[in-house]
């Protein structure tokens, strides 16, 4: 398997909280992988570690065989939409993209292409302060796409999107996969991603409790992926 993201025995503790607990998995190139688990199961912490934003307590995370910080042009390799604020409220959407286009060495014309792609071309001259949650998500996505990366990481991307937005995102992710790109998308709501993912990783209390292709996990004909998910992540004593 040609793995583009590899997480190896990753552990992250915040004080006494064990957010990620000896987690290992690999994401194969050219697939859409769902990173699932209830709130607090360690998804965000894992993704941030992959992106070099969080320092692991033990273990490591690699992107195309290197730690994130060692990627020569990271924006061209991997783009990320994080579940966190990342805009100056007083800067316009277009200026935000121009700043990071400059930092990534990407041409200015790419900014306008992306604004159109995510449907922000009309709002681009307005300050982000006035953007809705959905508009901020789309601006995040445009930022992640600046370097036209081969890998996309999305942390709870459906938050703040309306049903049309979610449909648009699904189609968009499928198109990227069909171009041979890789997507790792997290969610605590299985139904948001179930239709689009090729594979799932199910996380519970920082550990991997299931991994595989959707059809493998739902071996019993009457069982849905949702049954499996709820079964695996039911609160049990450790």
């Amino acid at each position: 398997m040609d793995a583009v993201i590899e997480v190896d025995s990753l552990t992250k503790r915040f004080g006494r909280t064990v957010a990620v607990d000896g987690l290992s998995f690999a994401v194969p190139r050219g697939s859409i992988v769902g990173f699932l688990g209830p709130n607090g199961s360690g998804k965000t912490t894992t993704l941030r570690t992959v992106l070099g934003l969080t320092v692991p307590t033990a273990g490591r995370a690699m992107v195309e065989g290197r730690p994130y910080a060692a990627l020569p042009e990271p924006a061209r390799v991997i783009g990320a939409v994080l579940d966190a604020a990342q805009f100056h409220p007083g800067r316009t959407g277009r200026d935000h993209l121009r700043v990071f286009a400059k930092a990534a060495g990407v041409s200015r014309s790419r900014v306008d292409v992306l604004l159109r792609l995510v449907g922000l071309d009309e709002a681009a001259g307005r300050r982000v302060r006035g953007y809705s949650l959905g508009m901020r998500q789309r601006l995040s996505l445009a930022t992640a796409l600046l370097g036209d990366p081969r890998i996309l990481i999305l942390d709870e991307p459906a938050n703040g999107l309306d049903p049309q937005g979610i449909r648009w995102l699904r189609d968009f992710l499928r198109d990227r996969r069909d171009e041979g790109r890789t997507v790792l998308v997290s969610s605590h709501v299985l139904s948001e991603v179930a239709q689009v993912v090729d594979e799932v990783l199910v996380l519970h209390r920082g550990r991997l409790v299931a991994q595989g292709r959707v059809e493998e996990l739902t071996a019993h004909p009457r069982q849905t992926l949702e049954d499996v998910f709820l079964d695996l992540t039911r609160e049990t004593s450790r």
Partner: protein
Amino acid sequence: MSRLIAAELLKLRTTRVVPGLLVASVALSVLMAALIVLLSSTSDIGGGTGGRLVLSSGGIVAGILALLLGIVTTAGEYRHGTILPTLLTNPDRLRVTVAQIVANTLAGAVLGLASVVGTAAVSFPLLASRDVAVALSAAQVTGIFVGGVCFAALSGTLGAAFGGLIRNQVVAVSAALLVLFVVEPLVTSLVDGYQRYSLTGLRVAISGGAAESAGAASGGLPPAWLAALLWTGYALALAVAAAAVGRRRDI
């Protein structure tokens, strides 16, 4: 690296913070110079000390605002989360810190230049209108103006390094104001010769202010070039600390 600096400069140009501070800096400098000229006795401002007080107001006001600018922009990256896309595009934290420092140094220089020009444009006509001849040579006046621009630039340097280390705007601004206006005057009054190393003393030395403004009675300040060197050293020490600590810190 130049790409990174260009991006940081674009960040500064695309919010209202820098234009706002630029206007505030020029307005305050002009106001301060005008008030000193108009409210002092002609014998006071006719002397060397009074002249320095008037002409250095631009550099000093710009410096304090540039310090705040540096703190607010670098610590603001953590407040607003813009540090996330910044580090995702350039994961080398030391390079990002350096680019932010360079950009804020340039912004400080712009603030300083505009404020010094504003001060000069107001001071000389007002002094002339009160029939006061400044008791300073042309070289001394030039020194005060150049020093003022340098001081504002170096204040941007220091503020950016400090904000990157502390990462919290309110805490960093409060700490800086506490050091400048409470800790330093206190230590200066207690420890003999401390003004030669204090930010206040170095500020006065760099910006060509009157030695009395450093809090210590007479003289005892390093020459401007040495003061600028010491100040830069402080800023670099903070930047190195910020980068060293940052390597092991979660964003």
